[in-house]
């Protein structure tokens, strides 16, 4: 009796194990690995499913998805990878995981600087990494990244971990613009100006300004919108109110940009559907949703940023190629260690 039970339990487990993956391989599907969060993607996915009848299967995680595709060694894993930064995207491309996609729709929708010439990756939205400044304690209305290492800000700057890829992208852009030696000096200066060791996320830095722990914080643009509209946690509206957003280097090269992007996986089982999904993401409906829900800058020519985003002021984007930022990502990570930024 007991043995029979055990046997049938094991049998059932084995069956489930075999059947589970088959269910996802039916026609009219795409399998998506997403570094982007579910709450943001789900409305888009629902809309896409409604329009095309294609079922979108998803796995969301912050780490290891690219490695999973790599380790699958060509087996059907994902058709599509969504990332939140250029470095992760380029990492996957450089590992030879990307399929070349050519699509007139994509070429028309996405400006050349936001996509790969060979169609191996596409930017979907962009965001800038800017300075949040205390309205009360910071008088100036313009700032540069370079200025952040000026001793006048000693003990006044807050930032999340130096090893976070948003920061690494910014540091990489500093290497690209100034060379490694000067970038390192700048990073040391910035480190010396920190109010306390890096910790928490971007919103935590905004809160620190509100609390009076620091006067400046380095953060992505869209968090401002999320705080300003946070009905569930209205306290964050007060944080946002205490802050003004400064777009750095508005007078010269412009503010540092990063993107969220997508790539189709090499030899994807559902390539045609995957391309349809990318086209959908670059289309008006999706771009508007990104702009309105997540306060990002849409990449599509002609799609405007939301009113909220516009209210922060005009953005002058740094025209540095995103591939340059990806190129120096690793070095930036090493510099963070070298100057002991996180200690």
């Amino acid at each position, binding site marked *: 009796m007991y043995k029979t039970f055990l046997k049938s*339990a094991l049998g059932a*487990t*084995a069956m*489930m*194990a*075999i059947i*589970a*993956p*088959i269910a*996802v*391989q039916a026609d009219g599907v795409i399998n998506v690995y997403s570094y982007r*969060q*579910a*709450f943001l993607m789900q409305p888009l996915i629902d809309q896409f499913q409604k329009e095309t009848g294609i079922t979108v*299967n*998803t*796995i*969301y*995680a*912050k*780490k*290891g*998805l690219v*490695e*999973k595709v790599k*380790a*699958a*060694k060509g*087996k*059907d*894993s994902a058709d599509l990878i969504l990332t939140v930064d250029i470095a992760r995207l380029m*990492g996957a491309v450089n590992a030879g995981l990307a399929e070349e996609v050519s699509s007139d729709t994509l070429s028309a929708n996405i400006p050349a600087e936001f996509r790969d010439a060979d169609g191996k990756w596409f930017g979907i939205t962009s965001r800038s990494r800017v300075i949040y400044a205390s309205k009360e304690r910071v008088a100036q209305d313009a700032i540069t990244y370079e200025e952040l290492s000026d001793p006048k800000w000693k003990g006044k700057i807050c930032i999340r*971990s130096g*090893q976070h*890829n948003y920061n*690494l992208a910014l540091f990489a852009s500093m290497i690209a613009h100034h060379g490694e030696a000067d970038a390192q000096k700048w990073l040391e200066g910035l480190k010396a100006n920190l109010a*306390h*060791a*890096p*910790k*928490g*996320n971007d*919103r935590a830095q905004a*809160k620190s300004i509100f*609390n*009076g*722990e620091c006067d400046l914080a380095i953060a992505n643009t869209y968090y401002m919108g*999320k705080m300003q509209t*946070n009905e*569930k*946690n209205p*306290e964050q509206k007060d944080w946002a109110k205490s802050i003004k957003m400064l777009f750095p280097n508005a007078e010269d090269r412009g503010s540092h940009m990063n993107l969220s992007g997508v790539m189709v996986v090499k030899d994807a*089982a559902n390539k045609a559907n995957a391309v349809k999904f990318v086209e959908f993401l670059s289309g008006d409906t999706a771009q508007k949703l990104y702009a309105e829900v997540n306060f990002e800058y849409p990449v599509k020519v002609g799609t405007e940023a939301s009113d909220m985003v516009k209210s922060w002021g005009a953005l002058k984007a740094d025209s540095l190629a995103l591939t340059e930022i990806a190129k120096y*990502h*690793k070095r930036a*990570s*090493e510099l963070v*260690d070298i100057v002991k930024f*996180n*200690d």
Partner: protein
Amino acid sequence: MTQTNPIKQQHIQTNKIMWVAKFQAMFRLPRDISPIWLLPAFSMVLCLLVPILTIFKIAFYPEENIWPHLYNTVLGGYISDTLILVVGVGSLTLVIGVLSAWLVTMYNFPGRNIASKLLLLPLAMPSYIIAYCYVEIFDYSNFIQSSIRQLGGFNSAKDYWFFEIRSMGGAIFVLSIVLYPYIYLTSRAAFLQQSVCLLEASRMLGKTTIQSFFKVALPLARPAIFVGLTLALMECLNDVGAVEFFGVNTLTVGIYSTWLERGNLGGGAQIALVLLAFIFILIIVEKLARRGAKYSHTTRQIRPIKRIQLAGKHAIYASIFCLTPIVLGFLLPFIQLLHDSLEFVEVTDYFAFIGYAKNSLILSAIAALLAVIIGLFLSYSERIFNIKLLGWMAKLASVGYAIPGVILGLGIFISLIAFDDIIGPILEWFGYAGASQKMLLSGSIFAIIFAYLVRFLAVSYGAIETGFGKIPLSYDHAAKSLGHHKNSILRKIHLPLIRPALATALILTFIDSMKELPATLILRPFNFDTLATHVYEIASLEIFEEAAIAALFIVLIGLIPVYLLNKMMAVPNWRDGK
């Protein structure tokens, strides 16, 4: 006419017996049981070792040598942070776990009954959840700091000093307050089973109770306490969520920057192996320190322990000492979660919740059952065959607990892909077209269950092995001399005696599987969520409050096994034939 030659047949049989006997003699195996029984034990332990060996293999192929860079920059910081964290969590969990277990076992004081039941509660609290809770509790805008500001008439954070929870001290506190139950559990079981005769003898010889504790009870309980301690420390080492959140730079954080930001998975795996070595050395040192002394008891106590009544000051101290961990490790964060949940009671999709809870329960239940079966098989084989190699292999496999879940998850995924490479073509041959192109086991929930087995082998094997360790070998010998076969010894003597250990293993692996996050995240099939991944998904929006209901669910479901565990421990004389 074919008739088998009886002489020839006998000859073959004798030959076979000779061969088996030679094998048994060569490895000094017992003669009354077929060595064939070693096969399942060895195959199990080999299967569980594969992911760890895979990580070893990954570590052999780094993108570049990471050590010069690390050595010249942050390695010192990583190591010192790791050591401080481990020593801090180790000492704090030991003090809380062992002392509270001793107090509730040996003394009567106000609140003792409640404490003995509730001291396990923090087990139900995942560390990533309690970390968030404490940041909330000590937050600038929360009740505590607001009150300070109001009372002191301060305007901003700069006007007064308040400790920073997101710090090394905070990390040690938060991890210790949820990890001490491992030590409480193992040491309380040991204290309950200690020989009262020995304690009385020690007291008759003029030792005070405190001296008896240090000279008799503590050394006798040492193996059990050590099992609890290694579990707590491994959990502490693989923890990334809480540690990163608190800005503590341990080696584990270094694994991530090496792997993710410098694209060097091999390098990350090397750091992971350093963590592993660290735990392994700890185990070896403990073994050497015991110098092979066996701790199975020679006498079995008949009488239950008579608890000593504490009065006055001492009673109050004891109450405070035993109730504080419950308040800090459970009550306070629980209230915070409840408070956060209230706002979202109406907007929560409970229907989806049932699905997540079902997934969590099924996975954890299967994993827990299998973990106990495997743990039992390994410990028992090790005992009857007396093979050290098996034990060491199991120990090596179980230190996988100390490896960060994502890395272990990748190790498992890669192993399973290799397995799929073998079975794919076979299935194709049977007519299942395209099988070799699919992720068969690697893309199914089997991967998650396998991950739980590897991760929590330390828990199940540790608990069961300690259980076996308490059964004197003389029992086996007596039973054998009475003509019992190994199988009937297991059924009639061992199983009833280690039943509590089995239940402990079952429940602990169940709770740990429920709480597991990183490996589940990466190994889950498409569109598959558990309570833990759901909490993670909401919490990663940086709106933790909204995740509170799901978090509460994890805690509440975790309470059921904790309750069962309590019931089991409440029967001190289980082994006396009950």
